[in-house]
């Protein structure tokens, strides 16, 4: 401020250097670096000046159209639920109800509302059908089976990596690099890798360096350091204003009841509450997801998401732009299984506002790509194609056999990838997997793991003769160790 500039020790000629020095000493330099690094990780590269906003969301026109049609279906579904059940999209809670909700804020799980009439807006398998029907109008594929037709379910020609490219990309998962999830097992003496790795992790945290943290977790994060490391990578530091912001969202939940709240309740009851690992966190899930729906700051991620937030108008003001609003306020309509994106994080963060911030950042960086139609390399369409291509190329016999018996592999693995394997793997394994998602800033590892799982159970799968039997072989992934599977598939399979 101007008063400071008038102090005698501030010299004009050294102002620039003095400010730089101040940044360094006060720790602000690191904070700025982390913030810039964070922005670079999230936002797409600057594009051509003539490119319109929709091009930034999704460059391919046919994908944008497909996403638009899919969204329209979801909106219609939600609208019919609204009219059929005669429940408004949103209503202000009467004061008595507000008080009641405030009192049981920490135990919303004890509530047993009648949710029988509500149905999820869609399930992953509905979404898969849409992806299967995606076509590039400029792609000459022919209707009959030919060498140009894709053997799998995905028929769009997106570029996906092959194993040599994946090996380069995921170099730190190689056989000669220490990994948590492999080299920390009980048989391995901790002096060989684990102790040193933990020491380095502590140093990274002391330095508060986001980029270093991201590089570090490629080899896995020690359990004791994971919460802090992820927060550092996601550039989350809970300031008083963040806590206040969360409290404001909570107030919004208390004041307004939304139809999507019932969808959230239903989803939590159907998925997380039934899960042995996650049912204890049921209350946390409501506290996060109900607030998430009211968070308008999430709207900014639609600049780079191919999806768009649903729109509505204040009752009686249809068509008047000054009365146009987004619904829900954050623009995200939850689907069946959505709460599983939050559940694993409950193991790491115990203050609701912290858990909330971490989940929100994970969503706007990664999870949104798993349920929107785009050509992005980490988008679900690319992941599906990557999975199918890996399987076809490196396990052709298995792929052909499964096709022949009517068990297209993607029909089984799709649900794993859409949920980022949450609810399918044991939690410690899931967290090791999500370490790598953060470390590589990519979801491609999900497709690689899916293929690795099929490779692991190939012998059993070759013997089945129906889709149901194939599903049974792959029904239980809770005993799998993800890092050995990934390592063997990428680095130790004869190609």
């Amino acid at each position, binding site marked *: 401020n101007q008063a400071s500039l008038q102090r005698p020790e501030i010299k004009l000629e050294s102002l620039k250097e003095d400010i730089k020095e101040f940044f360094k000493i006060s720790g602000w330099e690191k904070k700025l670096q982390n913030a810039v690094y964070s922005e670079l990780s999230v936002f797409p590269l600057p594009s051509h000046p003539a490119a319109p906003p929709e091009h930034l969301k999704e460059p391919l026109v046919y994908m944008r159209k497909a996403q638009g049609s899919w969204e329209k279906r979801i909106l219609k579904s939600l609208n019919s639920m609204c009219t059929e059940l005669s429940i408004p999209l949103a209503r202000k809670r009467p004061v008595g109800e507000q008080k009641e909700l405030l009192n049981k804020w920490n135990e919303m799980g004890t509530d047993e509302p009648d949710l029988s009439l509500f149905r999820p807006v869609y399930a992953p398998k509905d979404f898969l059908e849409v992806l299967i029907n995606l076509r590039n109008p400029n792609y000459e594929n022919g209707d009959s089976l030919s060498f140009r037709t894709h053997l799998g379910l995905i028929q769009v020609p997106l570029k996906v990596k092959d194993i040599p490219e994946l090996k380069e990309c995921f170099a730190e998962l190689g056989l000669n690099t220490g990994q948590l999830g492999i080299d920390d097992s009980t048989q391995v003496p901790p002096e060989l890798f684990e102790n040193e790795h933990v020491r380095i992790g502590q140093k990274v945290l002391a330095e508060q360096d986001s980029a270093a943290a991201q590089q570090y977790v490629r080899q896995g994060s020690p359990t004791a350091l994971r919460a802090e490391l992820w927060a550092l990578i996601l550039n989350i530091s809970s300031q008083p204003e963040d806590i206040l912001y969360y409290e404001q969202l909570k107030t919004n939940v208390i004041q307004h009841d939304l139809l999507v709240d019932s969808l959230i309740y239903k989803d939590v009851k159907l998925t997380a509450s039934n899960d042995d690992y996650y049912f204890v966190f049921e209350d946390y899930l409501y506290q996060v997801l109900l607030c998430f729906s009211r968070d*308008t700051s999430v709207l900014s991620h639609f600049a780079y998401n191919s999806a768009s937030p649903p729109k509505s108008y204040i009752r009686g003001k249809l068509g008047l732009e000054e009365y146009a609003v987004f619904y829900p306020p954050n623009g995200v309509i939850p689907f069946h299984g959505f709460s599983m994106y939050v559940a694993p994080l409950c193991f790491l963060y115990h203050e609701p506002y912290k858990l909330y911030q971490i989940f929100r950042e994970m969503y706007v960086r990664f999870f949104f790509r798993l349920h929107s139609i785009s050509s992005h390399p980490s988008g679900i369409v690319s992941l599906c194609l990557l999975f199918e291509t890996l399987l076809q190329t490196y396990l052709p016999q298995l792929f052909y056999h499964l096709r022949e018996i009517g068990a297209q592999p993607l029909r089984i693995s799709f649900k794993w990838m859409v949920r980022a394997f949450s609810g399918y793997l044991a939690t410690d394994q899931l967290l090791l997997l999500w370490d790598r998602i953060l470390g590589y800033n990519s979801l491609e590892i999900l497709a690689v793991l899916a293929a690795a799982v099929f490779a692991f159970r190939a012998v059993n799968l070759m013997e089945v003769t129906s889709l149901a039997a194939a599903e049974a072989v792959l029904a239980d992934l809770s005993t799998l160790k993800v890092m050995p599977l990934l390592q063997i598939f990428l680095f130790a399979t004869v190609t």
Partner: protein
Amino acid sequence: MSRVSVPCHVKGTVALQVGDVRTSQGRPGVLVIDVTFPSVAPFELQEIMFKNYYTAFLSIRVRQHTSTHAPTKWVTCLRDYCLMPDPHSEEGAQEYVSLFKHQSPSVTFPKWLSHPVPCEQPALLCEGLPDPSRVSSEVQQMWALTEMIRASHTSARIGRFDVDGCYDLNLLSYT
């Protein structure tokens, strides 16, 4: 230096094919687009901008009028410029592309089409004290920037999703 769009007429594509177009089964791999400039006055072409639609490689040839007597000459100024690194996949298929005059070595607009623009000399740093008027204008700029940021924060309704306290909604709209 201000830049303006040059009015041009883009003709429809013509396929280059060997043999009879009607009976041939194969799809042409090469299409030609003619671009003509109706204005007669000479201009300095700086940039060619377009949106790609599944073209893998681009070549540009220009027809040169040197004088009223000499016959016109075709000059290649861009050959097989790659727009799609993998033509069988979507990468680059629908991207916006700009080709600049100074892009080298693959882009060389012939001399008559452009004059090389003299490079601006970087401002020499003065020895000793900085120019106070320059410093004060920079500080002023920084100040104006912080004021702008502060102003834009207050104008945005942070966190509000309702309209004047009301969030009583109709059904969802299809745009």
